[in-house]
């Protein structure tokens, strides 16, 4: 019996790095400085529609008002509104490779309203639930990494 001929494709590999930098602007820049120096999270209150904007920016995306320096501290406690944990390797943008992520990822709503996406300390999915109260655990050394100045959010006592 004649052997079936297997189709062959010639592949030529190109490997290139595409480095770039991202400007945060003066408002989110100030947020990151405050996180780095004082472990504090700030937003900006829109003077017109009164929404608390986070991350802070020069304009309100909802009503298009220029916000000026209407700063307001947000605090670092909140409630988990969504979470998940990857069982597959996820692309790590810092390293440019796929890796298993150690911690569950969550959407956390700060008590003043805005949301932040961040890691949870508790790795056991069975011990997590929507509505659980959490607080930021700050990096003691080597801050100046934006949101990663917070290591993760830790479960705290539920509100009565």
């Amino acid at each position, binding site marked *: 019996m004649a052997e079936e001929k297997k189709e062959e494709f010639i592949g030529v590999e190109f490997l290139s790095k595409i480095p770039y930098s991202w400007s945060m602007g003066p408002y989110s820049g100030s947020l990151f400085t405050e996180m780095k120096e004082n472990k504090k999270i700030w937003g900006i209150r829109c003077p017109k529609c009164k929404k608390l904007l986070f991350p802070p920016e020069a304009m309100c995306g909802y009503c298009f008002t220029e916000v000026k320096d209407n700063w307001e501290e947000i605090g670092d406690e909140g409630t988990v509104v969504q979470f998940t944990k990857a*069982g*597959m390797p*996820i692309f790590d943008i810092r390293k440019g490779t796929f890796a298993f992520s150690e911690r569950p*990822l969550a959407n956390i709503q700060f008590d003043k309203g805005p949301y932040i996406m*961040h890691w949870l300390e508790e790795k056991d999915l069975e011990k997590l639930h929507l509505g659980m109260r959490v607080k930021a655990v700050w990096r003691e050394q080597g801050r100046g990494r934006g949101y990663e100045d917070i290591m993760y959010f830790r479960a705290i006592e539920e509100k009565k």
Partner: protein
Amino acid sequence: MANRVAIVGVGRSTQAARRPEVNDAEMINEAVRAALADAQIDINKVQAVLTNSIDGFDNFYLGDCLLVDGSGAYMKSGMKFHTGGTVGSTGSIAAFNMVASGMFDIVLTIGHQKQERGNSMGTLCAAAPGELREFVQGAIGAFAQAAVQYMKNTNAKLEHAAMVRLKADKNACRNPYAHLRLGLKSIEDVAKSPTLIWPLRLLDFCPQSCGAAALIVASEKVAKKISKKPVWVADHETVHELQSEVVFGGDEEKSQQVAARRLYKRNGITNPAKDIDCFEVYEPSSWEEMYLYEHFFITEHNTGWKLVEKGVTELDGAIPVNPSGGVLATNAIGATAMLRIGEAALQIRGDAGEHQVTKDVKTTLSSGLGGTNWTTLVLLKRSL
């Protein structure tokens, strides 16, 4: 719209995980030739060509320039769109507007993506705003989080997601242009697939596909002359959202509800479950399909899973959703939202073949969905 517009040709290429036997131009050419044949015109009749895809997802850029050989755009007018997951519908809506304006009589629009190449998850993470990018786990992370929330807010269980997936596969098996045709027999077959990112199993999320779609869009004058079964574009709508951490799911009103409400109001649709005969929606996960039933007001808030349980949205059900097999079966991203429109047009014509729905289809709704959750809707009708 200023002038009436019709879809007079629908084309699809072979859709598969890998298409190493053709290059990008050859792949889109399959869809273009199919659309021209369907419209019974040749490329010389086409006045403008639009090419649409997500730059970077497949390490391919400048499709408007580099695909002229396959698209047929040589020495013709046209442009390129790049909007994220919605791009296939945005490129279609642009074609509708170009014809509605009176500037063009026949426009060809093409959606394409060849995902055997590149790293779409990496590109998506890199596309997120700087402060967020280390917390973005591709699109799948956002849909997984929304699924967890859906389970909490409703009585939906993993079995309901499996029912949605089973429906998608049953329909895809009837569609020769679907990528995944798995022949799943039961929800246990879905349950067997490994968890990618809790609670999404491999089969609960859309695949990465290579493929293209094309539509021929014509003015009323031309459509009536060349087509026996023109499908009329009754209306369309696009709604943007702000970048938010809670992209999908959530308790706040989303772009889907805003878009649907506006479109329904303009077109006198008071009961979408009755006024619209068939839906082709952009459902990246089986859970998102249940969300969309609610967001498009087919059923009440937090009751989407009940439609699945009752089989209402099956191909032979009262409200068929995604008779083509949908995004869960086929997802060459740049083509995906255009396929929703093309498949809906075929349902209205009665030309969907094996996956033609049982009931008579006079009105359809197609949706597109893209990052930061913005929504496109296209309402098609057999007659205006």
